[in-house]
C-alpha cells in the first residue's frame, strides 16, 4: 500500500531574490499535524541523502582532534554544525582509490559510484551504479519519485571538463547504471513541478495525469514499433528507453493515487532562480525537505557546485574563483579563502540539518529518520588527492546511529565501505558495493 503523508495546507516558496525572506519552513512547521497519525510508519522510514562539496577542502581547518573520539570544540570549517553536533559524525581517513589518477572528473564520478571512470569523451562512457541509485531501487519503489537529483549549475560551460573525460563524469553525480548518468535539475521551479505537479483541483490534476498516461502509452507503442525496424544490436538501447517509459508511467500512477488521497491545495511555486548562490542553495535544500516530508522521495543527491567551478562567493567576501583557489600552492592567504568557501558550503548544509531537526515526524523529527552523507571526492585539492576525504554522516537513521563522534581510520579505508554501511542501515540487503572491503557497523552502531 502506498502512503503519503500530508503536507501543510499552504507553503511559501519564492525565488524572488533578496527582498523576499524565506519564511517557508518556519511558517510550515506549526502546521504539521498529519504526521502523528502515521507515527508508526514514520519511525520505520528510511531515507538517504548525499550532498557533494566540490574540490576538497582545507583539511587543517576541517579535521577534528585526531586523539578524541568525541566531537568537542568543532574545527573552524565545521563550526556551523555546532547546534546539530549531536546528530553528526565526522569520518577521517576515507579514500577513493577508483578516482585515481587524480582528476576533477573522477572526483565527482567516483564519489557515489566508487568505480573507475572509463577514459572517453564519446558515448561509450562507463562508470558504475551509484550508491543513491542502489538505494532508489529498493527505497524508491513505492514513492512517486524513486530518487531526486539536484545541482546548482544552470549552464553548461565549455572547456571546463577534464580532457579525455566526457562532461557527464564531472557533472552527473548519480548514475542509475554504468552507462546511464542522470541529469540533475538546478531550476527550483522545475524541481517543484516534478514534486508537486502543476496544481489545480483534484479533478483537474487527475484528468491531466490520465492524459499524460495515455500519451506515454503512445510513446511505448511507437517505441515498440521502432524496435521492429532496427537491428538486434540496437534493441538493447530501445529496451532501456522502454524501461524509462515504464518508470515515468509508474510515477504517474503514484501521483494519480496521491491526488485523490491528498489534495494539494494552492502552493506558491517558486518562479525564478534566486540571484544569490546562498538563497538558491537554501531553496534547493528546502525543496529536499518538502520532498522528504511529503514522502515524495526517499533518496536524494545534491551537488553544491560542480568540480572546477569558477564560482565566486561575493556573499561571504570571496571574489576569487573557487577552482584557482584550490590550487593554492600552499599560499596561506589562498588557503584561508578556500576554507571560507568550505565553511560556507558546510553552513548551508548545517542550516538544512537544523530545519530537518525542527520538523517533527512521529515521535521524533525528520533528521532522526534520515541519513545524509556530506563530503567531497577530493581531500587536498592542491594535490588532486583522493585520500583523507572530508566526510560527514548526519542523521539518526531512526535511532540506529549515535552522533557526536569522530570516527578515525588509521589505515585509509574505502569510501565504499561507508556507502555499503549506510545502505545496510537503510535496510538494504547488500554484501558489497564498489571497491568495498568491509563495513563499519561497529563504528556506526549506537553507543
Amino acid at each position, binding site marked *: 500500500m502506498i502512503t503519503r503523508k500530508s503536507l501543510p495546507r499552504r507553503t511559501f516558496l519564492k525565488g524572488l531574490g533578496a527582498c523576499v525572506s524565506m519564511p517557508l519552513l518556519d511558517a510550515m512547521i506549526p502546521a504539521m499535524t498529519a504526521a502523528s497519525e502515521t507515527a508508526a510508519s514514520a519511525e520505520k522510514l528510511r531515507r538517504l541523502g548525499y550532498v557533494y562539496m566540490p574540490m576538497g577542502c582545507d583539511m587543517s581547518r576541517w579535521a577534528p582532534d585526531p586523539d578524541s573520539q568525541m566531537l568537542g570544540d568543532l574545527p573552524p570549517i565545521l563550526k556551523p554544525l555546532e547546534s546539530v553536533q549531536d546528530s553528526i559524525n565526522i569520518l577521517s581517513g576515507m579514500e577513493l582509490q577508483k578516482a585515481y589518477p587524480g582528476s576533477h572528473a573522477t572526483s565527482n564520478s567516483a564519489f557515489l559510484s566508487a568505480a573507475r571512470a572509463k577514459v572517453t569523451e564519446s558515448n561509450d562512457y562507463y562508470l558504475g551504479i551509484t550508491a543513491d541509485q542502489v538505494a532508489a531501487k529498493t527505497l524508491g519503489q513505492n514513492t512517486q519519485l524513486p530518487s531526486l537529483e539536484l545541482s546548482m549549475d544552470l549552464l553548461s560551460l*565549455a*572547456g*571546463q571538463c577534464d580532457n579525455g573525460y566526457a*562532461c557527464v563524469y564531472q557533472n552527473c553525480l548519480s548514475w542509475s547504471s554504468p552507462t546511464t548518468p542522470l541529469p540533475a535539475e538546478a531550476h527550483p521551479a*522545475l524541481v517543484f513541478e516534478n514534486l508537486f505537479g502543476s496544481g489545480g483541483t483534484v479533478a483537474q490534476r487527475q484528468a491531466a495525469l490520465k492524459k499524460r498516461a495515455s500519451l506515454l502509452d503512445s*510513446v511505448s507503442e511507437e517505441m515498440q514499433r521502432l524496435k521492429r525496424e532496427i*537491428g538486434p544490436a540496437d534493441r538493447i538501447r530501445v529496451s532501456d528507453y522502454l524501461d524509462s517509459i515504464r518508470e515515468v508511467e509508474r510515477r504517474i500512477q503514484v501521483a494519480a493515487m496521491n491526488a485523490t488521497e491528498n489534495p494539494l491545495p494552492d502552493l506558491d511555486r517558486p518562479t525564478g532562480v534566486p540571484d544569490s548562490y546562498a538563497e538558491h542553495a537554501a531553496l534547493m535544500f528546502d525543496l529536499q525537505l518538502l520532498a522528504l516530508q511529503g514522502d515524495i522521495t526517499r533518496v536524494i543527491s545534491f551537488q553544491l557546485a560542480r568540480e572546477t567551478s*569558477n564560482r565566486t562567493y561575493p556573499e561571504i567576501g570571496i571574489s*576569487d574563483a573557487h577552482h584557482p583557489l584550490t590550487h593554492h600552492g600552499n*599560499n596561506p592567504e589562498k588557503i584561508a579563502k578556500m576554507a571560507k568557501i568550505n565553511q560556507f558550503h558546510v553552513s548551508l548544509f548545517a542550516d538544512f540539518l537544523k530545519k530537518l531537526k525542527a520538523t517533527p515526524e512521529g515521535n521524533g523529527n525528520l533528521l532522526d529518520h534520515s541519513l545524509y552523507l556530506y563530503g567531497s571526492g577530493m581531500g587536498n585539492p592542491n594535490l588532486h588527492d583522493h585520500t583523507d576525504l572530508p566526510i560527514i554522516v548526519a542523521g539518526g537513521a531512526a535511532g540506529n546511529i549515535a552522533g557526536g563522534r569522530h570516527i578515525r581510520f588509521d589505515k585509509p579505508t574505502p569510501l565504499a565501505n561507508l556507502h555499503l554501511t549506510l545502505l545496510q542501515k537503510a535496510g538494504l540487503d547488500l554484501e558489497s558495493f564498489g571497491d568495498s572491503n568491509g563495513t563499519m557497523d561497529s563504528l556506526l552502531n549506537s553507543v
Partner: protein
Amino acid sequence: MPSPPEHLPGFNRQSLPVSNCLNISTMLRMMSCIIIPLLCISPIQGDEASLLMKKSSQQFVQEYCIDCHNSDTQEGHLDLETLPAQLASDSQSFRASWETWEHVLKRLETRQMPPPDANLPTESEYVTAIGDLQSTLDRTAEQADQPGAVPTFRRLTRTEYQNAIRDLLHLQIDASALLPKDEASFGFDNITVTQLTPTLLNRYVKSAEIISRLAVSASSTEVVSQTVRIPPDQTQAQHVQGLPLGTRGGLLIDQYFAVPGQYDISVRLMRDRNEEIEGMTGEHELRMLLNRKSLASFKIQRPKNPSQHLTADQHLKARIQIPAGQQKLGITFVAKSNSVIENRRQPLNVQFNHHRHRRQGPAVYSVSIVGPYAADAPTATASRRKIFSDRPMHQEQAVATATRILRRITRIAYRRPVTDEDLKVPLEFFQQAAGTNLVKRFEAGIQAALESILVNPNFLLRIQRQPTDITSGSVYPVDPFELASRLSFFLWSSLPDDELLSLAESKQLLNPAVLESQIQRLMQDDRSAALVTNFARQWLYLNNLKSVSPDARLFPDFDQNLRTAMRKETELFFQDILQNDLSITTLLKSDYTFLNERLARHYEIPHIQGSRFRKVALDPKHQRGGLLRHASLLTVTSYATRTSPVLRGNWVLKNILGTPPPPPPEDVPDLKDNTVDATLSVRERLNEHRANPACASCHNLMDPIGFSLEGYDAVGRFRPFQEGRQIDMSGGLPSGQICNSVADLEDGLLDRPEIFVAAFTEKLMTYALGRGTTFKDRSAVRQIVADASASDFQLSQIVLGIVNSKPFRMRTAE
C-alpha cells in the same frame, strides 16, 4: 625559406637536457636501427607496398626524432624506434601504428617537434618529410575505409528541440525553461545524447502539453504568470536597443501570447540592500509600450518616509489588451538630462553597486505578466496559420482534413515520408479529444494529436536507419533522408524543410550540383544563424560569459551591459564572415570589428555612440581586430581577479592549433615542496612552475602563448602598463618562434594557415557529425583543407568539404 626559429630562453620544452639523449649507447642504437628498417624492406606488391613510409620520412625520423623517442628513453611515452621497423614489414602493423603516426605528423606540422633547442631540420626537410608522411597516411585512410559511426539513436539537444518547434509550428519557445541542460563532450552538447532518462522523458511529455496548447492558442481557464528579471549588475542609465530613442534602461520582452486578451503587467523596481528603491532622486516616469506604442505611463517619486519604500512601486501595474502572436513588450524610463549627481565617489561609469556607486535613477528589477483575463477567441497567429491550413466544413470531412494536416506536420517532424501506420496514433488522439463533434472540437483534436507527435520517438530521436541486408562493420552511404537531416541539423540545428525533404524523396539531393546549391541556400537562410548561436557560442566559450563575474573592486565598471556587448561583438564578427563568405583566417586577423558605445568605451575607441552595434574600421593603435583581441575570449579565459596565461594558452592550443595538451600527468608533483612566493607576478610564478620538469612539458607550450596576450587584462582591456610597470608581452609559439606582441602571435599562427584551418575544420566536423573526430578522420580533414586553400579558405568551401567528406556521407554499420 624562413630562418630557423630562435631558441627561446626559459622555454626549454624538453624535460631532459639535449646532451642526455646523445650518449654513446644511444648513438650505437641509432645506427643499428637506421640499418634494420631499411634492410627489412622486402619487395611488396600493389596496395600493400604503397602503405609503406617513404625513405625520406624514415630518414627524417632517424635523424631528428629517435634521439629522444627511442625504446630506452621513450620521451613523452613515445617510442619511434620500434615503429619504423614494423611499418616496413607489412601494412597491417602500419595501421596499428596509424594513430601514432598521425600524432607525429601533427607535431611536425606545427613545428612543435623537434624542440627548438634540438638539432633542427631545414624547412625543406620538414616539407618533404611532412608531405611523404601525409601521403602515406592518406593512403592508409583510404584503404582502411572507416568513416566512423554515429550511434543509431540520438535525441535532439535542447537547442535543436527549440529550433524544431520554431520551424514545425512557427512558435518561439524557451526550451531552457522546459528541458534539462545537455552535457557536453569534445566541446559540444550534441554528442552525449543517447540517453532517455525518466526525468527527461517526463519533461518531454510536459513540454509537449505546453507547446501544443500554445500552438493552437487553446483557450484555457488557467491564468499563467511569468516573471522576467533584469540581472542586478545591468546598468540602466542608457538607451536600450529596440526601445524608442529618448528612453533609458528597462527592457524589451519578446513574448509569445497564444491567446489574445487582457494581461496584467506589473513592474518592480531594483532595491538596495536596505530594501530601499534605488536611484529615487527627483521625479521619474516609467512607460509600458507594446510594439513601441506607449500604453501606460507612471510617475515615480521618492517616498516621504523609508517605510514606504516597500509599497512605492505597487502602482506600476496596468491591465492591457494584448493581441495574439509574438509581441514586443517594452518597459522603460523616459530619459532625463545626462547631468551627473554629486556624491562622494565620482565619477564612475557604473551605477548599480549599491552604496559605493549609486544608481542615478530608478531601475527595473522585474516585470511580471499575468493573464489572460477575459480571453478573446483565438485569432490568427503564425502558429495557427501554419497548423490549420485547412478546416472541415462538416462532420464527414473532419477526419480527412485532420489526416491531411497531420500528414503534413508529421512529415516534417519525422524528417521522412509518412506511412499510414505513422498516422495511426495521432489520429487516435485526434478522435479521442474531438469526441463526437468533430467540427466544433476540431482544434482540440489537433491539439491532442500534436501532443502525441511531440512525444513520438520519431520526432525526439534522430534515428540512423541502415539497410536491412547490411553486415555489421561494413560501410554504406547514408540515404537521402539521413543526408537531408544531417545537412539541416548541421547548418540550422533544426529539422529539414519541405524543399530538402522533397529533394530527398526524389533522390535529387544526391546530385552533387543540387547538393551544393542546397548548401548555399541553407547557409543564406536566416536559420543558419545557428552556426553563430550554437556552434560559435560553444566553440568560442561565449556561453561561459554568463557565468563570469570579474572582481567588482578590481574591475568596477564591469556590468551586464558589457557582458552582453562582448558576446555580441564576437557573434557579429563570426556572422559577418559567414554571411560574406570570407576566409576563416579573417577570424585571426582583421582590420574591423563590431562595436556599440558600451564596448567602444571599454576599448577606448572614440566616436561610437548609442546602443546599436555597427561595423567599425580599426587602426593598429586601437589594438583590436582578430578573435584573440576580443574582450569576450580574453575574459572567459581569465580568472575573476587576474589574467591566466595558462588558460589562454590552453585555449589557443586546443582551438587554434588543434594540439590540446594532454591531461595533467599522474605524478602531479607535490606542490608542498614548491611553495611559490605569493609576491611574484603571474609570469614569475609560472616560470617557477615550469622549473619542474613534470609541469614543463605542457606548460612550456601553453604559457608562452598566454604571455603574448598579457597586453590585455582580465576583462580584455588593453594595458601596456600594470602598476606602473610596462607589461612584458614576450612569449612565443610551440614552434619556438618568439612573439613580442599579439600581432606577432597572430602572424605566427597564420604563417602556416592550414594548421588553424585544420583545427577549425575538426571542430566544425565534430559539431556536424555529433561525434568526436579521431585520427581516422585526419585524412578527410587534410583533404578539406587542401581543397579550401584554392579559395583562400572561404567558410562555405570548408562547409562544402565537410558535407562531401566520407565521414559525413558514409556510415559504418553497427
